[in-house]
């Protein structure tokens, strides 16, 4: 078998295993109970190690999925495949208690290649949002001094399949990008009222949302050199787009009886907010420095019903980091490793009980070459703090690890001689 065949087998194996792997939550955050869940940043694990900043980058060793215009430097002879997963350890704290949760899930699959000298293309899958929480509360039964326990559980989330294209103009000084994608998925939010103290029936109040729509985004990058210094400026924009949502509401008891069922289709309740991201990158020899700023108009989604105390709000995030490349491609293994460090800060897209809360994290990353070829294992780690332990909120200290397998195979080389 040829190397090309072997790689194809590995890629297919990974994809099949992805589909058949056990579905697990990508988050344990209580904040994922609102709306479509917590937004998931779509990015390569390489970018995750640099404070999630990559809008202005156009790498040739990995696929930049953060900006459709970031595909201009893909190697014309190479097929790129990226498979990455994310594991996390989340420590939840509020005024009552502490708890730790851990889980892992697939974070994305990407394939990319150059179609022509000026046209790069990437197709992939990544989660768009994640719902995963397991909470409980005790509330008074109105009119009595008795209490009952309520469990709130949520699972699922939205996925995104995308097809990005970049077109290079003016010797790649200007790169235009556009992406079309499909958002789809479903998530469940279940409220279980336990009346064990009364020896009464338990009630399961389950709401299942199924959403889908097309999704468009546009990118641009400017690239120029000053001496040995390379500067890139990038931007990404997507407009607000409502999703077609169907809604199943089932109330049942532990005797198996359906007490209430409601099925509503074609409600436009959830939406992708208008977002704009700008970034800048500077590269000199073995050193790359980059930074991004993103603004999302979540506050415009006023029709989303969270209840009285929670609403969406516009949010912004800023992050930056650097990468150090120790050696050249022909150097020994240990010299070909790459090291990354970053930091980011963001405000959350919701206001809970009039409290804005934020999220910040320190990131670090490492690229480990696999053998003599160009395949690599990319590892990024981040330590995130989200929310607060006061005012009825929850503080999260999240340690997450992204591991990506980047496969680069030379598939498109044509032999000149037999």
């Amino acid at each position, binding site marked *: 078998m040829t190397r090309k065949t*072997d*790689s194809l087998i*590995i890629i297919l*194996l*990974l994809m099949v295993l992805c589909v058949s*792997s056990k579905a*697990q939550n990508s988050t*344990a955050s*209580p904040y994922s109970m609102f709306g479509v869940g917590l937004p998931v940043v779509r990015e390569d694990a390489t970018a995750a190690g640099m404070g999630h900043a990559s809008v202005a980058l156009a790498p040739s060793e990995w696929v930049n999925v953060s900006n459709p215009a970031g595909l201009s430097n893909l190697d014309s002879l190479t097929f790129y495949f990226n*498979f990455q*997963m994310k*594991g996390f350890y989340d420590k939840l704290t*509020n005024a009552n*208690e502490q*708890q*730790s*949760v*851990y*889980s*892992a899930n697939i974070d994305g699959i990407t394939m990319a290649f150059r179609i022509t000298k000026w046209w790069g293309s990437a197709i992939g899958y990544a989660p768009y949002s994640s719902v995963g*929480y*397991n*909470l*409980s*509360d*005790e*509330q008074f*039964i*109105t009119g*009595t001094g008795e209490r009952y326990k*309520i*469990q*709130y*559980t949520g699972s699922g989330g939205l996925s995104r399949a995308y097809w990005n294209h970049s077109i290079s103009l003016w010797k790649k000084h200007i790169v235009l990008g556009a992406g079309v994608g499909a958002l789809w998925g479903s998530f469940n939010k279940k409220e279980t*009222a336990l009346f064990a103290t*009364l*020896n*009464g*029936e338990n*009630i399961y*109040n389950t*709401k299942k949302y199924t959403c889908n729509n097309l999704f468009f985004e546009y990118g641009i990058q400017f690239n120029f050199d000053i001496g040995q210094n390379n500067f890139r400026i990038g931007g990404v924009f997507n407009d607000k787009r409502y999703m077609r949502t169907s809604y199943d*509401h089932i109330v049942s*008891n532990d005797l198996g*009886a359906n*007490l*209430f069922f409601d099925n509503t289709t074609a409600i436009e309740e959830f939406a992708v907010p208008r977002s704009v991201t700008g970034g800048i990158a500077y590269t000199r020899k073995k050193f790359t420095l980059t930074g991004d700023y993103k603004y999302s108009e979540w506050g415009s989604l006023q029709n989303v*019903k969270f*209840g*009285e*105390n929670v609403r969406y709000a516009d949010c912004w995030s800023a992050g930056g980091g650097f990468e150090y490349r120790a050696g050249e491609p022909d150097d020994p293994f240990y010299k070909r490793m790459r090291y990354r460090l970053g930091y980011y800060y963001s405000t959350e897209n919701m206001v809970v*009980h009039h409290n804005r809360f934020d999220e910040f994290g320190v990131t670090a990353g490492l690229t480990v070459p*696999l*053998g003599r070829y160009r*395949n690599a294992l990319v590892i990024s780690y981040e330590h995130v703090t989200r929310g607060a332990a006061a005012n*009825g*909120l*929850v503080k999260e200290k999240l340690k997450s690890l992204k591991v990506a*397998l980047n*496969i680069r195979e030379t598939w498109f080389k044509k032999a000149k001689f037999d």
Partner: protein
Amino acid sequence: MNNRLITLVTAIAMLASLVLTSCGGEDFRIESSFINSGSYAESTNITPVQLSTFRLDSVRTSGYNKAWVGRHTKPIIGDVCSEALVRLTAPSSMAWSQKEKYDSITIEINHTGEYQGDTMKAMTINVHRLAQPLRFAERENAFYNVRTFRDSSSIGSFRFRPRPHSRPHLRYRLDDSFGRELVKFIKDNNYKESGYVANNFDKFLGGIKLTYDDAQNLLAFDASSIVITLHSHIPLMEKVKNTRTLSVSNEYLGFQYNSVWTENTVKPYDELTERYKQVTEDRGGKHSVQFEGLGYYTRVNLSSLESVMSESSYAHIVKATLYIYPEQGSYDKRNFPSLLYMQVVNKGNVVQGDVVDSRGQRVVGLLHYNIYDEKDVYYTADLTYYLNKVLASGYVDKDEGIALMWNAGMMPSDYNFMVFNGHSKNKYYSYLKLYYYYYDKEDR
């Protein structure tokens, strides 16, 4: 190592770690203010019920094994009178020898220690001989009027004074005329085939009935302990004593009845002459009566079910508990029934079936006894499944009610007497307590 193998191993290791990793931890206790749920639970503390008393046409008392005899004045309803009837069998061999001489005939009976009324008063108990054989009622689930067995004659009497906590074995002499008549019956049939006397004994004695004179109490006797003994002797060289016993066999225990009726019945309970008639709590002094020995049963009407039905369009009953409060002093604390069974009855008070729970088991009211507050004694019964089933049908039959029973069988008799407080009482009233779970249909 081969580069492709390294890549493959790496890929498989990643997926394996993904599959093996799973969430840890129990549910996280969140603060209530974090949640914005449109659902909540609420209790309507006092949902009204209406109690009433109805009376079955007569009472099935067979197989009860308790022979109640006497008369006792019950509050609210008047004088309760009871007579006991039992059928006796003869031994298979009753042959009478030529030289055998009659001595006497006696009755033996055990007092169970149960009584209602004044135990300090002596009571005269008369033993009557039934001319007609006592038989099973033909309708198994019907109720019996055993007062039709009036064709009887006295064969003796005795006077008995009960004592508290005493269960004496009683033995009294019956009239010799009855004894001699029995000897004559045996002699007359002496020549016939073996077992003839035993098989045709009901032609001589259809049964016996225990009645009372001037009773101010009701006493219970163990019906299976009733024995009539014929004493005789044979004058040989020495006097050889002989006895023959007429007893209640297990086969005939089912032929044992109590005949119960009222006299000087207090209004409005004197109106309860038919099964379908009821005395509601507003006419019955805010009470209902439970006295199965007389056929008085309490019926609970869930009068607020229609308003509950309107609530149920956006709420579900997670717990429905019926509280039934007895009137203090109306019950015998020494013999407090610990269970209260429930049966669905229609407008005519005909039993439709048991009130059952989600497992198909009979719903039972449980006794709660507060040792610090004698008034705070009540029964609770879980009607959650029953109510939800009615509500799920979408139709509330206003004529449907729940009859309370002391016993699990089909309307057997019991001499426990209790007055229940209706909902219209000011304190310690009966009611239905509902816990609703409200779910917001619009909340998404």
